[in-house]
């Protein structure tokens, strides 16, 4: 029964998250591994996130320009693009790219380690593999995705500035001023906060899928694949929840 397995897996992932909070913050602290994972999931995702952010800002500007011009509202493009990127497009697209690159990589890496008994080897080497492998990766994705989103937003907005100047002339100062005049903390803070949850979900699901990967190379592939699929779905669900919460708080 698909419903039963969906419910069962949801319960198992929740239990896995509970284990993260129980074990992840107790000594022995794996700080060196946490920093290494921050480097791996953060620094090494920069090119992909940067390119995506640039294309997102450029395309959004070029596609919205004709419609805005019809209404004589070209001067509102920076405000509209700024709000769109910062509130929604930046976080969600960066999270999806991050899920594709990092979620699958974590799922495949841990799955491969499970299949080749490296996780068992860690345990007999005096190491709690959950803390060393899972807790550090989940913390790293939780901390790095918000930073990557800020970077993607900045690059996307700069690409938007370039897009506007392809068919007109606007100074950077005016462009920035237009964006800032349309933004409030109610736009920026919820969008920033939800990226922590996106990062947590991507790390947790990638680790869960890899850590409990079935034996064999097929299991490794399935772990990588389902890590991306489930994490992407959860990102949209979390986004929906975030919109409802900000609506209830009067921030929409």
């Amino acid at each position, binding site marked *: 029964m698909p419903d039963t397995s969906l419910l069962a897996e949801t319960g198992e992932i929740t239990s896995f998250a509970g284990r993260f909070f129980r074990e992840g913050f107790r000594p022995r602290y794996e700080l060196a591994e946490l920093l290494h994972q921050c480097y791996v999931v953060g620094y090494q995702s920069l090119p992909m996130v940067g390119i995506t952010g640039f294309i997102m800002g450029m395309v959004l500007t070029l596609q919205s320009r004709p419609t805005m011009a019809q209404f004589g509202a070209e001067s509102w493009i920076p405000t509209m693009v700024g709000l769109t990127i910062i509130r929604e497009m930046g976080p969600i697209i960066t999270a999806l790219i991050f899920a594709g690159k990092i979620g699958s990589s974590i799922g495949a890496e841990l799955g491969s380690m499970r299949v080749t*008994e*490296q996780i068992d080897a860690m345990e*007999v*080497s*005096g*190491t*709690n593999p959950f803390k060393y492998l899972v807790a550090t990766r989940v913390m790293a994705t939780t901390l790095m995705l918000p930073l990557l989103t800020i970077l993607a937003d900045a690059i996307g907005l700069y690409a938007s500035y370039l897009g506007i100047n392809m068919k007109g002339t606007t100074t950077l100062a005016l462009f920035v001023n237009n964006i800032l005049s349309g933004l409030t903390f109610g736009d920026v803070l919820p969008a920033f906060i939800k990226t922590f949850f996106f990062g947590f979900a991507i790390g947790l699901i990638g680790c869960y899928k890899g850590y409990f990967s079935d034996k064999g190379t097929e299991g490794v592939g399935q772990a990588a694949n389902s890590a991306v699929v489930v994490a992407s779905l959860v990102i949209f669900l979390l986004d929906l929840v975030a919109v409802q919460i900000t609506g209830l708080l009067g921030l929409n």
Partner: protein
Amino acid sequence: MQPESITQEMPRPAAAAAAAETVLTVDKVSKSFGDNHVLRDFSLALHRGENVVVLGKSGSGKSVLIKCIIGLLTPDAGRITVLGQDVAALDHAAMDRLRAKVGFLFQSNALYDSMTVRDNLLFPLRRHWLAHGPEEEDALVLQALDDVGLAQTAELLPAELSGGMRKRIALARTLILRPDIILYDEPTTGLDPVTAREIDHLIREVQQKYRTSALIISHDMNCVRLVADRVVLLVDGRCYAEGTYDELARNMDPKVKEFFA
């Protein structure tokens, strides 16, 4: 129908071993996975300086046995005592201290792909807090690599090594902790006959050089012949027969002959 054990009919293999200190005792251990009863009241004793091979068909529960001994699996019933400590009664910290004295050579070698050979060897040393500075670390790594004849591989990645070399490095990672007991999970599986014999000789060299006790899981009869002081035949989760290689080779029981024919 379960086969009857013929263990009682076998004479003790070596009087010297019987008199030696027992470092590992498996006492009536049972382990099931659902309806699959992998181990049934299995018992075994390992003495200091002795190599015991647990022989059995694939899927007969050999690997489950050593994973119960090292605490990776928990038996449903029975008691396992390692170096005088009841494994089931140990907390995490005590278990880690015990694991520092018990080496485990995994069937798949379980070398960390992302680390160099040197870092692979240092990993258990550092995690067990047994390293005291870079100079001592270097000396221990060099000694362990020298023991397995691969002193020049420290900066290589596991992917750059052959199957036999990876097995040796995995053994070096076990030896670096100077364990009292080594558990070998099918040490020659997947290796060509020449490399497999080299690993067999290495197991003997380690036993003689460091006076380690070893429990070796295998179904490679050449390995059994070369490394075993005593052989325990595992059939349907039970200890079916026990003795030296020669004693079991002379045994006319059909289930024993399946292996020694």
